[in-house]
């Protein structure tokens, strides 16, 4: 029995500290922004400090357990994701400030929405109850719809927002319907523990299978896995570049964190149904990897290329789900963390090169970058090599762990598909390096002049993340396996 009070406060507040604090930071930021009109610097600093505080709270690494009457779970798993989301938000916010100033589009709402989305993500990772998962997904998604359409005078951005909203609402319908079916099939269970035991009693119920299937569809949409990815390229291309960086890393990570906990509750151990579901997930994962990489290889726009490649990355991450083991979870978490640093880094480089009018995003605009902007080109090359999975850079070890988990779970064929897909991906990731290093600047192309400003901090942090996680993956592995 654990005590109900901790230093005179309800103990739930202590266990739920990261979420409680995050919610507080969100609301306070709104108040700060309302009180100090048009003083985005204060809001920016406040949000950053708030995020650092939440990271600090999450670093306390609470013992595994639940809080708020079993509504949220706490522990290493959720704390890891708290740190991941908040770090992504922090990196994006720092880069976003200088980016938006360059675009002359800086409003307080950007920071508020990022904070709000982050709190939604944290709810998803902490959820121990279907409703909390749903609320988290909605809070995150609605913030994303607005963020995608943030540059409201630009057609592409508005289109991205609308497209994302319509398709996202549709996917939410699937998800919600699936949840309702599960609720019915399990006899009114909504807490994950209860669902798990109900599923264990009667694993082959048709209602349950239908519910699980619909939930998989909804979540595949959120992680942008094939064949539910069609929104991703347009939205990622149209949204402001820093927002793309946030959506494609933290957003994907949040969806996967919920995916893992939901599958953990819904897939019964060792039954024939489990084999079927795992096979379904494996097929989705393989198809995403192949499709994403093949289509990415034909793109000429850097953002679109990274968008399609993020479909493929979702496929890799799902290998962890397919394995369905602790090792798979560790691999997925490793991969998400390394992908976060790499993708944010790459998109922030793109955001620095982008002009005020949304130009300079084509591959050909990167020609000769190694001469005009050697530092930016060097960093971009580093991120691309990490994406390819060259050791000793971060994403290689993520892949290694995922391969290990998949093969251990008997999905050797999936690992082979992943290996082949990686070779395909080498073609276009290297294509960018080719343009930057091996091609001369085009005739008449204006010499790129840009000041990274605050974005430089993000770049330095991401690059050191990529290198550190690569040289010493042990640090992260220890964190992900702590207390398991």
């Amino acid at each position, binding site marked *: 029995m654990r005590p109900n009070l901790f230093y005179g406060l309800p103990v739930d507040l202590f266990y739920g500290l990261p979420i409680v604090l995050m919610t507080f930071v969100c609301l306070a930021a709104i108040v700060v922004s309302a009180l100090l009109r048009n003083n985005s610097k204060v809001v920016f600093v406040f949000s950053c400090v708030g995020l650092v505080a939440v990271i600090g709270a999450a670093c306390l690494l609470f013992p595994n357990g639940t809080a708020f009457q079993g509504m949220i779970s706490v522990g290493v798993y959720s704390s890891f994701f708290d740190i991941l989301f908040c770090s992504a938000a922090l990196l994006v916010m720092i880069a976003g400030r200088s980016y938006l100033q360059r675009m002359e589009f800086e409003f307080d709402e950007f920071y508020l929405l990022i904070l709000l989305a982050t709190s939604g993500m944290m709810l998803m990772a902490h959820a121990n109850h279907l409703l909390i998962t749903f609320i988290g997904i909605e809070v995150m998604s609605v913030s994303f719809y607005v963020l995608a359409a943030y540059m409201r005078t630009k057609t592409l951005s508005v289109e991205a927002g609308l497209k994302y909203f319509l398709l996202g609402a549709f996917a939410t319908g699937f998800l919600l319907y699936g949840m309702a079916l599960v609720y019915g099939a399990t006899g009114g269970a909504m807490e994950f523990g209860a669902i798990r035991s109900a599923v264990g009693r009667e694993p082959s119920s048709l209602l349950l299978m239908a519910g699980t299937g619909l939930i998989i569809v909804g979540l595949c949409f959120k992680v942008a896995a094939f064949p539910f990815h069609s929104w991703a390229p347009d939205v990622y291309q149209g949204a402001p570049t820093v927002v793309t960086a946030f959506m494609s890393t933290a957003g994907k990570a949040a969806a996967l964190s919920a995916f893992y906990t939901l599958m953990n509750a819904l897939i019964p151990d060792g039954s024939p149904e489990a084999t079927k579901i795992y096979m379904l997930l494996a097929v989705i994962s393989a198809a995403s990897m192949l499709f994403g990489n093949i289509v990415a290889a034909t793109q000429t726009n850097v953002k679109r290329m990274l968008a399609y490649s993020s479909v493929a990355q979702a496929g890799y991450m799902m290998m962890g789900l397919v394995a369905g083991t602790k090792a798979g979870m560790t691999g997925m978490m490793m991969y998400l963390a390394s992908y976060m640093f790499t993708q944010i880094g790459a998109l922030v480089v793109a955001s620095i090169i982008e002009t005020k009018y949304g130009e300079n995003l084509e591959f050909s605009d990167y020609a000769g970058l190694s001469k005009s902007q050697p530092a930016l080109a060097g960093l971009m090359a580093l991120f691309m090599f990490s994406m390819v999975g060259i*050791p000793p850079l971060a994403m290689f070890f993520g892949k290694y762990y995922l391969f290990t988990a998949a093969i251990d779970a008997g999905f050797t064929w999936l690992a082979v598909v992943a290996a082949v897909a990686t070779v395909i991906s080498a073609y276009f990731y290297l294509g960018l390096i080719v343009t930057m290093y091996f091609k001369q600047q085009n005739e008449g192309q204006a010499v790129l002049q840009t000041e990274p400003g605050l974005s430089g901090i993000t770049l330095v942090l991401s690059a050191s993340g990529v290198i550190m996680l690569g040289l010493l993956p042990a640090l992260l592995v220890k964190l992900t396996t702590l207390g398991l």
Partner: protein
Amino acid sequence: MSLIFALFAPLVGSIALLLFDRVALRSIRYTALTVSLAAFGFALAAFLGFDASSPQFQMVVDKPWIPSIDAGFRIGVDGMSILFVLLTAITMAVAVLASFKTIHEREKQWYSMLLLLQFSVTGCFVALDTMLFYTFFELLLIPMYFIIGIWGGERRIYAALKFFIYTMFGSMIMLVALVWLSLYVQQTTGHFTTNLLILREVAPTLGLSVQTWLFAAFTLAFCIKIPLFPVHTWLPDVQEQSPVVGAMIVGAVLFKIGVYGLIRFVLEFFPAASFEYATVMCALGAIAVVYGGLVAIVQTDIKRMAAYALVCSLGVVVMGIFSMTPEGLQGAIIQTFNHGLSVSALFLCIGYVTERRKSTTLADFGGLARVMPVFTVFFAISIFSLVGLPGLNGFVGEYLLLLGTFRSPFLNTWVFGIVGAVSGTLAAAYFLKMLQKIAFGKNDREENQVLSDLTPLEIAQLLPATILMLWIGLYPATFMRVSEESTQALVGKLEVLKFGKTTYAESLEKMKHPTKSEHQNNEEHKESSKK
């Protein structure tokens, strides 16, 4: 310690060079040269400090790296790898020296990439951990990619991408196999590990069907590197488009990783599959010999001709490896070592003339012996060494390879020996054609009559390799005895697995019980033979 320094000196140099001002060409060049000479010094010290009478890994360093998968920073050398380490150090020092006059663009990056390449190649040869090996194996793609892509010829982008994707394909498949193997070790011993020394104990216990798959994955990766027919097609493009120094490194050092990998990983990990498919591998080697040789003869471009010549000569090496006899393996190792020396000398020579003449077409040359006598001497020595003239290094390796293939109890056929002998004839055909077209014949072009002979700097680049070529040709024992024990131990292991007895029990014993004296070993050997 000298081994660690030989490994890390280039890395330190590579990073340090990035801090230099890019116009300070003199200091960049001489720093790079100093670093590579220092690395050579350390490699030489390691070579001299190596105890050739033991087949064990020596100078072993074992530090934890990623505890959760038991990957460690484990390095060490045995009789086979120490030779490759030395070869790498020699070639890279020559490569740095050779770049002084040939590279004029982005020099800072060039030397930095060159040293990074030296770091990763040396790492491949000394790694005693599959994770570490894989890291180096992949890392070397980055400098190689830039070397071809930035400083290469007209179609350099195509060549660089082709090279990268080809090799990447092989190594990704190998990665899956490596993971599979580590998981198998986990099942049998209870511990997941990437430790090479444990893997090579456990892997041979796998059943044949599984071994076949893993054998295929590893062999593919290494055969792409070698490159063996039919996955050799990246080579001519890369050789043609690379800058001459780059082509020299590819020919002299990069292929050796494939050869080394076949011996260290494929033979040791998957003996059963190696017995089963030795004939297939030798047949591929034989095809490479005939095909490469015939295609080389008809080439009109010097660099392409040299590239196909490489395919041809490496085919013989593969046959030697899969003969699985001490002679064949010794021959493969010494031949790769030789080949590295001769090929670097050959490519340097090719570089001098093509640079002076600004052409790589064979027909543009002729009669250079008259205007460039010193050049012709060095050029002829390297050509004769590659052809296998007795008295030069090529002959020693060729002879052993042929002997091994003939005598192999695993292959049990003389066909491959014949093909190996044919390779000598083919080599004579294309290399002598190259020599004759360039150095002899009529000098009927005005441009060719004013070419200047080699400068002292160029002679200095050629000398180390040429001296070693003569040394190995006249007294091969200096180098051969180093790898003798290791190869015999390996063959002993293979023979025990296949036939249940071995002629090399002594080396095998030493491997298992390094502390026991010779006397005890002999006694045990007698006892076991009595039984």
